[in-house]
């Protein structure tokens, strides 16, 4: 590939799903997957994954720590459909059934560098009180047919959700050839490294 005039740009994502904060629940694990547009294709790395089960620490904070690494590289021709990471958290309920504890999605940061994102999580609500009771009894809470739904807008109007918990992610972003293709995600004022260099 000629480096002078590239036809695709690359987006490399390193990072980790660091912690989660679900005050009421314990022993949770999470799944992640990426949602991206038609013009995007992963070139390396894992598109989805499932983490270990993490319990809350006894002391200090009540965060669940997964430190689950993410690593994926995308290539794309078009920033439209910029990838989003969809995180869904599961854990056992009082009867030991595996139920969903939260869905959340966030766009992969656009600018190169290190970013921390905290996603508020939510779960779909039962359609009625009775449903709620039985779903609680049966351990079959309502779930999205596909976690990727949370990264899309279409059809969401029919759902009701309530929020619970947060998940914190960290991303290290490297992009390649974005500028060459005319996508300038780094504004000039935001180049701290260079400025620092100049100062020193």
């Amino acid at each position, binding site marked *: 590939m000629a480096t002078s005039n590239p036809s695709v740009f690359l987006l490399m994502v390193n990072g980790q799903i660091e912690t989660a904060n679900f005050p009421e629940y314990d022993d949770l694990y999470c799944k992640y997957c990426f949602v991206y547009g*038609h013009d995007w294709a992963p070139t390396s790395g894992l598109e989805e994954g499932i983490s270990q089960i993490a319990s809350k620490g006894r002391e200090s904070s009540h965060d669940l720590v997964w430190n689950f690494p993410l690593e994926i590289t995308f290539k794309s021709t*078009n920033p439209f459909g910029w990838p989003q990471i969809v995180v869904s958290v599961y854990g056992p309920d009082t009867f030991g059934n595996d139920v969903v504890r939260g869905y959340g999605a966030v766009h992969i940061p656009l600018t190169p560098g290190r970013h921390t994102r905290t996603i508020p999580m939510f779960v779909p609500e039962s359609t009625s009180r*009775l449903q709620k009771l039985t779903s609680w009894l049966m351990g079959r809470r*309502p779930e999205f047919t596909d976690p990727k739904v949370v990264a899309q807008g*279409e059809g969401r109007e029919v759902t009701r959700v309530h929020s619970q918990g947060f998940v914190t992610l960290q991303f290290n972003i490297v992009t390649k050839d974005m500028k060459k293709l005319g996508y300038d995600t780094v504004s000039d004022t935001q180049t701290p490294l260079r400025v620092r260099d100049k100062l020193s």
Partner: protein
Amino acid sequence: MASTSDIRDKLRRKHRALRASLERRRDDTQEVTGGEEEEVAETLRRSLRTQRQRRRKKLLEKMNADESWVEEEVAGAVVEEDGTVQVFHRDERSDDAAELGAVASPSGRPPRELPPLPTPKENTMERRMREKLKAARSKAESLLLQEEPASRLQALRERDTRTRFDREAGVEPRPRRDDASPPLAGRATLRDAVRRVGMDAQTETGLPTAEESYNFFTFNFDPEPEEKHHPRQHKKREQDKGEEPGEDEEERQQDEEEEEEEERGDEGGEDLFLIEQSDKDFVEVKRAEYVGYYERVQRERELFFVPSTRTVPASRKLPENMQPRFLEDEGLYVGERPVVSRTNENIMENRILRQDQDKKWFGDDGRVIVLPDPIKESPTRPPLFHMEGELDPALQTVYRKAVRAKNTSRYITGAGDAQGDFQLDVDVSGLIFSHHPLFSREHVLGARLAQLYDQYLSKQQKNLTGLLTDKLNGLRNTIRNMLELHAGQGLSQATQHRIAEYTQEIRYTRQMRDASQEKDRILMKSIVKVWKELKALREFQRFTNTPYKLYLRREEVDRDFDEQQHKAEIQAEVAELQAEAEEHYEKMMSDYRRMHEEWKRWRRKQKALKTKKKKRRQTSLEEDEEEESEEELGEEPPRPEQPQEPDPEAVEQQVREKAARIRRKPGEAVLVPELTASCSVTPSDQCPRAEFARRQDVSKRSLFIKVLYNGKVVSRTDSRSLSADFRVHFGQIFNLKIVNWPESIELQVFETVGTSTTQMADVFIPIPEASILTGRAPSEEVEFSSDQRVMFNHEGVGSGVPFSFESDGSNRLTLLTSGKVSCCVSWAVGEDNVPLAPPIAHPTGAIHSGIRQMDAIACIGASGVNDMKKLRKWAADSRLDPNDPNNASVMQLLSMVSGGEENVPDYFRLEQLQEEFNFVPDEELDKSRRFRLLRLRSQEVGEFRNYKNVPALEREVSDKVFQEYEKRLREREIVDTKDHLDAHRALVAKYLQKVRESVINRFLIAKHHFLLSDLVVEEEVPTIGGPGTGVLGLNLFKLAEPKRPLKPRRKERKKVSAQNLSDGDIKLLLNVIRAYDLPVRKPQSSKPPATSKPGRSFTEPFPAAQSSHSTIQGSDWPMNQVLIRPFVEVTFQRTVLQTSTAEGPNPCWNEELLLSFTAPNGDYSTSSLQSVKDEVFINVFDEVVHDVSKGERDWNGFHACVEKHWLGSVKIPFSTIYLQSRIDGTFKVEMPPVLLGYSKERGLVSEGGYDAIRSLSEGAFITLFITIEPQLVPGETIREKMKDVKFESQEDERLLLASQFFERDAAQHFPARPCLTTVIDINGKSVFVTRYIRPLNPPQELLDLAPNASQEATELVARYVALIPSLPDTVSFAGVCDLWSTCDQFLTLLAGDEEEHAVLLCNYFLAMGKKAWLIIGTAIPEGHSAYVLTYEQNRYVIWNPSSGQYYGQYDTFCPLQAVGCLINADNVWFNLQMYDAPARMSFDVSKSKFWKPFFSRAFSHPGLSSVQPEELVYQRTDKAAAAELQDRIEKILREKIMEWRPRHPTRWNRYCTSTLRHFLPKLERSGGHDVAEEHRLELQSLLGDYRISGFPLHMPFSEIRPIIEAVYSTGVHNVEASNVEFALAAYVHPYPNNVLSVWIYLASLIRTR
């Protein structure tokens, strides 16, 4: 009795006296009116009486009915009343005694003593007494109930006054009087015992009322009837007019009454003497009064009324003897009553009944009258029904230009931020009136003087005259210098020109200076004049009102110098003027000369003409010509006058005169006026009265000012009084913190006189610029005036009214109130010296954006727009330099608006700033291929849906991408016949495509509509006791269920919604279980020995076959043969899988095949999956192993060559599998009618027709199980949504409702059974299904073919219908809906699914006179489908319309699995039987136990007309076209086969081909039956040397692609033997209306030698 006569005498006397006195005053008219009045009064009285009686009666009744305690009370009252009566009576007597002295009291004749005289008087007395008693009774009870007899004394007095009053009012004296009696009665109770004596007798006689007693006294007892009315009249008059005798009379009466009371008291005992007795009686020491509980309760009960909640009987609410009327029942409109609870209503009614005796509150129906409920059920706004149609003009929307909300965009940007703290200081320092209505004359003059002085001062300050003089001198000097410079030489052109300009300038300047000087002088003069007038006025009025005093300072000047200057000035001027005059003269002279010349020429001509004329006149004396010639010359030009020479003297004179007029004389002192306010004002007490009044008035006035910001009152100043010099000082500063843009600052001046406040004037103050800050801003004086008219009668001159200074009133002038407000508006300065002014950028910014976007200006509300014209004018006036960059923006703006039109668009644009955000203009966007691609993708255009990796750069997008798409767009109009082989089909395909597109577009919205179940997986609500597994209890039991039960039940697989799948996720699972009745190979020996050499022809693969072939000739089939080695090959999306080989005609494979599925374009959405047109081909082959003959190859080993021979196939469309989600059953293998080399055991073949309905032997069968793994959610969601989308319909609403109900009911009881009542026609409208059934004639040709055999004809017709290609709606209308076309549409389109076929077949059958029904049911493999049922020869026959096959009711292999409903032209029956398999049910629709009819007796058939045409018109198909098509098919197929065999040569056996071609028509004629044997024999005879395997394929023709597919699936081309030859023949048989039957004969030949 003697006393009686005395009394009478006396009475008579008195009466007469009275009458005399009255008559004296009365005149005739009065008499008459009086009489009338009397009459009226009498009737009134009577009516009142009757009314009262009635009321009382009712009351009594009510009380009797209702409350017993009231009754007691009444009784008490009666008793008391009696007492009163007695007292009264006695009073009467004593009263008379007291009054009349010696005359015995009139009532002194005790009633007892009087005989019951029939005299009217007595009677009336009695009656009245009785009435009174009754009235008193009722009153008494009500009074006792209502009011506490707190103080008797008071009651007594009250009664007194009341009676008197009443008497005077005179209308109804009695009831009022009755009022009074209860207290008396109450009192009477105390002395009950005393009075009981003789009570009874007295009650009978009654007691005279006041009136009666009056009558008694005044009545003329003479029997004359004419006099009878007199006393009444008399009395009436008294009452009405209050005349003296009346008054007297009344007074007397009252006296009587009072006395009565007193006497009553006398008689009654000590407590009546309370009034007269001493205080001791009041101050009596008593025990504390205690009222016992019971007593209190009793008392309260008397006082309180507790309305009952019981229903009031209607009779009490209505007038007596009236039945309640119910207006509603009578058909009158009665509004709905507002909801009031029954108890409340009852309480209300009881209360009303209690309070008001009359029934005005109750309506005719006995209920309380109420207004109808005002709340409407539905909104009154008319709904808009016709969206596309013409609107009612009344409802038409009217375009109004959008009006900006007043306060939007007024806010200062950033207001509320840290910087947005803006403050405007309004300093109102004071007010000076230049005219006020209270001005005196002197004030007027003073004001004028002050004004003039002000003018003078400002002029002085500007010093215009001085400036102009200097300029003049400068100019003169310049000219002089220039002339001096060029003294001798001739002046150059330029210099001359300049000099001329200068002179011009001098002239102009001089004029200006002169004017200015003149003004100065006039001003001076007028100042002096006004001052003189003022002085005169002061002297005249002898007091001073104003402090003005003018001093004229004289400044001496140097006389000589002055004179000199003056002279020089004059001289210069004179010189100039002379020069000017000379110049003028020159000009005039030249003009004159020219004109003169002209004139002379004319004269000459004239003369010449005249001479000519003279001559002519001599010759001919015609006048006309003369006139003409005169006319020719035209008018005589005026003889120019010679201009006068300029007269220097006159000029000088003129100049001097002017100088004398406008300049001071040389040496005259310069006058400098000085106006001071040093004059003392005469104190008020020395002024005359008028002036004093004026001053008083002035002092009464006060003023204040309201400050308005943007039209809102912000604050106001204190009220300050007007001072004598008409100045008001406020000195207040208002700090306005503002959020809105300042638009106007207004001061309103109010004047207060006493309490009334009037607004005098509005003063608008300009909004300061941002640079004007508090502290630096100069105070401004803003003038105001008002046009109020005020006039005074004192010295004040008023305003708006003329007044005069002269004593004779001449020279009037009118002044209006005016004045000046001195104020100052500026922006405040913050604490840290930051101006609190909004940024100045605002207006300029607006202009900038205005340059870009004209209508943006209007929206932003910049001031620029309004003044666009002004701006242009200003720019033109000020000669802006267009090249100056500073002016660039303005010039640009001006160029935008040039042309004069205001370019603000007339329309409203929603996103008016959109353009500014556009990256590129739209055209550019359209040009870009990349953007086009992106856009098409997002529009989900078929070709680009899910297009991956749109290139990043424009140049990388190749045009090829769009080729297909553009081609399609182009083709939409052009019909391409190439692909379709047949013009008609091409047209149909186009039409279908269009219909499809429009239908799809219609439901595009619905497709993007999501249901909760699409997104969220949720356990179903456990329905308690409902069907299925959803019982809550059971679900709870499940918790305790063992994890691995011993007898596991089948669980439904989890359904996967299709949207998240990708390639390879979906597998097609196909389980091939077994087959029945496959054909077996025909042993070689079957060929006739005559035709070929035995032993040589076919290599017999199996010795067993060989051994048996002799026996085969015998009709019994030996059992020990290896007949066939079949295997199944499944082809799907060009992937091929095969099972292992089994043996025998009834093989069992039981193998599972997994085929992967890829959706088109990788789009796995439901709609896309539904439109997959791929089919699963299940082909049954026979594996034939040949020994490669030793003769040909000399190999040492055993060589076998494996061939596969196609036996038959089953086609199942993917869409069926997808929609059914699982297909399980035994299918008939479609086999060619002739299978060379194979035969079938046909034990039961017969010609018996329906008698011998083939039980199971016809054809071979295969058992399959097909499903998709994982299970996909079928397109049901969309279908369900479609149900919500109501199709418009022309059916009766009632019918639609009934059908909906019918279907719902059916679905409730038998959810699996399809029920159909309404269908959607091709236009997307709901149509009732029976409308589709109507007898329609089949093509006559077919009937001609089999004229008598009805069964044959039936079969032919069925075959004809089956030949119309089948195209499932689900494919063409991707999961949208099932459309039914009518038969003519179907025949035109020549494509349709089972329903259309079935309808057509059914209609044909009906036309042929059969009993036929449409079956809606479930079949394999189609799923929901339509079949036709006929009743023939006492049995039911089921027809498959798309294959033309028929089955008996009890046929095991009938593809129809379940019957949902039957339809014919009259009715729809739903299957209510326990079983729905045709073999297990009854088709007798008359049994209502089994079949539920749609139209029953309750809802009869409304006589629906059919949607079908009356008759079908068939066109004869062009034979030539068919032949052409035949050739083309053959050619295409040949090419295809060669294409499929890329590595081998493909040889065609022409001889065989021609033979085959010869066969095909025969096959067609026989319908594919029973020609095999003959056929094979013929072939064998022809091609003896070949091992031949082949078969004819038969199919309806739709397009070429399915034919190719079918040929491909047989795998004939796969023969790889090197010496193989092929034969291919095609035959197209045309049927009417372009229905084509296609036969393809395929054979492979292997030369055996």
